[in-house]
């Protein structure tokens, strides 16, 4: 009798020990691209839409049809971004890029508009951007080896004279203050390649390197034997004339047009805070100076820090760099300049860089992908290989 009682109790316990099944939600995201005279059903047909879970970092890809509407089903709750990227020929020698991006909070099934812009590609593109720096054998941080490589992606000679490189004012750790100026980007640093228009040619399929410090970082005693690059042959250098702290190496010095937080040398944010762009303000130094001086902005009337406002129409190429997926919501570049974002997941001091993907090779000339969407266009965690086009 007692045994029966204890077994009965055990069965009751067993039944009560059954945990309830997980109660979870999944939602539907409906994204609609507004069609217009410019954005036609043919334009959006086969456009790739990538949905990114910003917390977990995974992506879901799908192709849009000519209706301009795409459905993502069985989506877990969370914070997402969706990017659209599509390139298509618009003539015998020209390519148009359709790009779009939207950020979403998905805690129910939602319908969102995915705004898109049409843009065209330029001849000069940023091929490599190395900002992470490296570690010395003594485990010290080393970021003197940062550089930006500019590539001629066209089949004609292009002159680099007067091309400026700018760093966005915001490091992307908070909401961009300047969103009320959608037709411009605001720079904390503007450096320009010298020349009068015909001094610094870049042949088709070739590049120039803008180095923070133009010397052999690998073998020089003042360098870092674990550094991945030798920049002794860099074409240009960011040299800062500041109490002799920055050594002036043999490379041609860039022109310092704006350096809001002026110090002994320039530095790109090693974790990925520096979004950069190539811009064409003016070749003539006086004209360029006037433009910058007439477009200085500050955050408040009390601030002594002035930044440079650059019109989107002056931008040749832009790369939106963020810390990581979680910081993508602080994207700064307008969609028309860069519809996506990228970063080095290996992190600071990793010796890794961002490198543009190869689209094709025509008669030995490498053509890099340029859809104005850095999420799509760049390889992450690449080994730095300036002047190598593979």
């Amino acid at each position, binding site marked *: 009798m*007692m*045994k029966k009682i204890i077994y009965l109790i055990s069965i009751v*316990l067993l039944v009560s*020990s059954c945990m309830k099944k997980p109660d979870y939600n999944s939602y539907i995201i409906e994204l609609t691209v507004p069609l217009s005279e410019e954005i036609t059903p043919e334009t959006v047909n086969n456009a790739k839409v990538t949905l990114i879970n910003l917390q*977990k970092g995974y992506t879901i890809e799908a192709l849009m049809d000519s209706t301009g509407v795409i459905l993502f089903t069985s989506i877990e709750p969370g914070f997402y971004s969706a990017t659209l990227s599509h390139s298509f020929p618009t003539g015998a020698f020209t390519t148009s890029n359709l790009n779009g991006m939207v950020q979403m909070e998905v805690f129910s099934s939602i319908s969102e508009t995915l705004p898109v812009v049409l843009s065209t590609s330029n001849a000069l593109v940023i091929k490599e951007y190395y900002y992470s720096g490296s570690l010395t054998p003594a485990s*010290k941080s080393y970021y003197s080896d940062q550089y930006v490589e500019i590539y001629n992606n066209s089949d004609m000679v292009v002159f680099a004279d007067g091309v400026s490189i700018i760093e966005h004012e915001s490091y992307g*750790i908070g909401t961009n203050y300047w969103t009320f100026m959608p037709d411009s980007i605001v720079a904390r640093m503007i450096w320009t390649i010298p020349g009068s228009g015909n001094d610094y040619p870049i042949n088709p399929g070739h590049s120039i390197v803008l180095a923070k410090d133009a010397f052999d970082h690998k073998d020089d005693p003042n360098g870092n034997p674990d550094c991945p690059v030798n920049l002794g042959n860099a074409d240009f250098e960011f040299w800062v004339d500041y109490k002799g702290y920055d050594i002036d190496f043999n490379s041609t010095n860039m022109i310092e047009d704006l350096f809001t937080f002026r110090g002994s040398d320039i530095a790109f944010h090693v974790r990925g805070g520096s979004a950069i762009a190539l811009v064409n303000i003016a070749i003539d130094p006086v004209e360029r100076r006037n433009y910058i001086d007439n477009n200085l902005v500050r955050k408040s009337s009390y601030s002594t820090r002035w930044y440079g406002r650059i019109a989107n129409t002056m931008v040749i190429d832009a790369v939106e760099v963020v810390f990581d997926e979680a910081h993508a919501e602080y994207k700064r570049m307008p969609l028309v300049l860069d519809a996506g974002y990228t970063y080095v997941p290996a992190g600071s001091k990793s010796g890794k860089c961002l490198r543009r993907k190869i689209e094709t090779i025509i008669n030995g000339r490498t053509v890099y992908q340029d859809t104005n969407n850095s999420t799509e266009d760049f390889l992450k965690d690449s080994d730095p290989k300036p002047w190598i086009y593979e």
Partner: protein
Amino acid sequence: MASSDTLQRTSLHSFELISLQNPWLISSNPAALSQMNLSLVGIMNARYGNEDGSFKRVQQGDKLNTYQFTTFSYSQIKDISLYGGFNYEKSFEKGLDYSNVNDPFRLTPYQVIDTIGNDTYDREFFSAGGGLSKPFGDRLTLGLSGDFKVGLASQNKDPRPRNKVFYMTLSPGMIYNLGKFKLGLNFLYKYYNEEIEISIVRSNTTAAFFTAHGLGMATYHEAGSFNRLYKRNSKGFDIQLAYENSKIRSVNGSRLLYHEETAGDGRKASNASWAYLKKDSRLNAIQFDLYNQTSFLHTDNIQSFGYSLNINTVLGTEIIQRLEQVNDLELDDWITYDEEEKYGAEDVKLNVYYQFYKLKNNKQKNFNLNLHADYHSFIENYFVPNQEEYYKNLAFGVSFDKNFYHHKKSLSLGLKLKYKMNLEGAQNFSDFTYIAERIFVPDFEFLSCNYIAPGLNVAYEIPLRKIFDQLFINSTVDLYFGNNGQSRTIFNISTGVTF
């Protein structure tokens, strides 16, 4: 000096006999101490253990060296029965990958993982416990027991976690005597706390961290340091029904425990400080145990059989938060947007065994034959994106050991053999993430692998004259050979005294 119904002197096999003659020991009821009729029985020993080989879990180190000191005893003062023990353990787990938690096999999917491997976990743990029981009249016995474990684990390479671990159990219990039948009931309260501080000694360096959510799903962080806090409260009870006559002692029991565990992160993001604690997840689990041990006591032998069934069901909830500015003073805090039950698991273990213990001169061990079978099934699911893993394993084991006596000295030689086979299993992943490929796929290969494990144990005892009864040295070797070509050796040697 020894248990009154077994031996004159306490030896290593005294403890085997105690567990065979006292089935109450399989319960967690401290009042059962009074049922065992023991005088002073104790042991004190030092152990060295070594594990080495590639046949292992992914989050297990290649090598494990353990140094341990243990002392434990039963005793009786008038009508109060007591036990107490103390344990010190120092270990080095080398060649460890993908783990920043002290115990990655704790049935929680919410772990912190870094990608830089070949770590060494240096652990130092103290534990102590004790209990007492006292009869009140002929029918009622009350008891109380408690134990705790506290320790520190740390790794030697960036990113390097420091894990402060605290664990305690408290249990009051009672037994009501109905003659040949006895009814027992005890309550259980357990608390587990693990605080992890992960730092990177190299200046200006960050590392990739994954906070895992189960079956390869994880949140990724790039950070220079990371903090996590686990807190688990467990409450439950254990009921028993025992039957006893001059030849048979049997205890049936059933135990139910509810666990709730939270994991919080002190992650530094944006311009937040460590004061902003992010709630990562909550884990609810129910543990159900059903057990029996029945021993037949004869003059020259003891036969014992029994089973234990253990069912753990787990429900995991992710807490979705975002760091946001909460007022005009630019203060940030984690804002909760949703809580989603996205993880479920069920772990079932069944063990049945039979033991034949042959006595010599009615009090010493002659030989011991043990047969056992173990069934283990495990299924876990992650929902949206849907990930599933399950496996069912069956294992059989046999062990035999015999004692040889010569001038009051004793030599024990034993052999054992275990064979585990996988009945079925599969991984159905809709998303093969980095974590899934690096941890779950190879770990599943190990868990669903067949193996054969021969073993050997040798013990030698010599009598002592004064305070202690016996001096012993004991060694075991277990070899695991998986059908994937990998193997692992587990070696232990201990020496100590009995009293």
